[in-house]
């Protein structure tokens, strides 16, 4: 875990903006608690996100009069895009860890119609499929005699 704990509720609001709620079915990434996962993945490097986050809050106050977490939802995306431009690389690493963590989260797996479990030991049933499709292959690709 990094020494510079990322500021809340700002970081959570950023994650909610990156992966928003899926209707009523699923909360956004921040509300699902992905902040802790992402911060842990960055480890000591999490501090590198701080300048961009601080810049985001400053920009939000300047434009909306509110901190980012309280800014009108319609404006948050624009603010985030602008900050991503001013801090190149800010979103790249953040999205990598966020996407990986989010799509391994039990609630997200269930929302995709999967069971929230590792592949082992349950495995998956899988039908053999129609081997009759091979009837048409005949002598295609016949090996070369030597």
């Amino acid at each position: 875990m990094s020494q510079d704990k990322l500021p809340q509720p700002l970081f959570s609001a950023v994650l909610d903006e990156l992966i928003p709620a899926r209707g009523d079915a699923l909360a956004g990434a921040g509300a699902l608690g992905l902040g802790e996962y992402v911060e842990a993945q960055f480890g000591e490097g999490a501090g590198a996100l701080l300048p961009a986050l601080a810049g985001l809050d400053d920009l939000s106050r300047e434009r909306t009069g509110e901190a980012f977490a309280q800014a009108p939802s319609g404006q948050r995306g624009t603010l985030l895009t602008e900050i991503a431009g001013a801090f190149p690389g800010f979103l790249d690493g953040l999205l990598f860890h966020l996407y990986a963590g989010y799509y391994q989260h039990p609630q997200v797996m269930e929302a995709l119609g999967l069971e929230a479990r590792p592949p082992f030991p349950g495995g998956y049933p899988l039908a053999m499929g129609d081997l009759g499709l091979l009837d048409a292959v005949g002598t295609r690709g016949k090996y070369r005699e030597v």
Partner: protein
Amino acid sequence: MSQEPVDVLIIGAGASGAAMAWSLAETRMRIVCLEQGGWMNPADYPTNRTSWESERFTGPFSLSPNGRGRREDYPVNDDASPIKISNYNAVGGSTILYAAHFPRFHPSDFRVKSLDGVADDWPIDYATLEPFYDLNAQMMGVAGLPGDPAYPPKQPPLPPVPLGKIGETLGRGFNKLGWHWWPSDSAIATQEHGGRAPCINLGPCITGCAQGAKGSTDVTYWPVAVREGVELRTHCRVREITVDDQGMASGAIYIDENGEEQFQPAEIVIMACNGVGTPRLLLNSRSDRFPDGLANSSGLVGRNLMFHPYAMVNGLFEEPLEGYKGPAGCLIISQEFYETDLARGFVRGYSAEMLRGIGPASTALWGMSSGRLPWGAEHHSAYDGLWDRTAGMVLICEDLPEPENRVTLDPDLVDADGIPAPRIEYALSENSLKMLDHAVARGSEVLRAAGAIDTWSEAPLPPAGWHLMGTARMGTDPETSVVDPVGRAHDVKNLFVVDGSVFVTSGGVNPTCTLQAISLYVADHIKKNLATLFD
């Protein structure tokens, strides 16, 4: 410290070393295998955890030895190669991570000089290896379907891996174009086999099979070989093969699990460290008699390194394909473009190994890197259009031997025991580049025929340095080869090489069943000629 002498010393407990140890065990000779890695614990494999997808990219189960941070691995300087080394160092060797796609060479692969005027013919042929392919298929537990027109008749011992919806979809695409395809021979126990549990379609076989269904040699050959008396010493890294006054191999100096230097004397030494590890060790074994490295009077140790240049082509489909279920790399093979057709602008050819789909996190990461998955309001609808809708293939191009492509010793880089590490110099030939272009175009064509609405590709595939061949080639002439037709070093009568280093050419298929068949064939020769082996 010097150990008790043994009859046979095998170095490396991967695919080829395991087959050799098992085959020789019946002789009741004293056999020791030294392996720098340890036994794997299936409970450690990523499929035991929900983080199985992200564990593919970093950490102890990732592909590159340089990124794993395990003491058992040795670093490889592959900066001078567009294709990077992927391997694994443990009991089972690289079969711990391999996909278990298990096609044989074709009869023509052993005769490329006679047939196509390129490279060299092998001094052995398909018929010589055929009984050993069959034996190996039993031991590794090969699943497949008889009747593939692309091969002489063969009888895989187990039923094929399921096609599932994804296989049917792709098969229909091949049929539309009239191209060859067949369910892949796969070293995967589709039924209980030799005490191994059947495959339960976990998917990501290339981070290790927690079920024990995949034929990695720690669960196939090794348990039997050890039961039959072979001593497998783990966490023992060989530094050098020693020679006596007569120029015979006398044993090996190694660093044991406690970091102590040991000497193991032996009557016969067998190298099974793979196409990079074997030349590295031979080049590290210099002496007054062999100043350029052991068995290297031809100067060919380390040269003629062949990978298979890989292309990857994927397609996006409109319907879910259930592609995340089933062994990821074992589905269908197409050999429509396997043989030379000069009208294509290159010699020799390639196989298409069809792949199943990817998991939810990999889908998101690929969507991000390809620009198909935005963040923000559109994220979920974009993801829904990607999830479980991808299928694709890798195209395995035959690599021709070229002396400039080689393994040498790095002047600076060393492993954890201070032993010089290998350095790779490799460039893609014009022939390979043309073949890759052709493969990408045909791959996209068949995906479209199968219903893909979009396709994308990458060639060459950077991490695809997993087939390591040619660096101690086999031949009859000591000036143009390192080992003779039974794997014995021309320069050292009691030194054998049985891994992919001995390949004369690479074929256009994954190499493991061929290198294991060679290992069993060499073992058979040793067993039949024990009394006269050194005459």
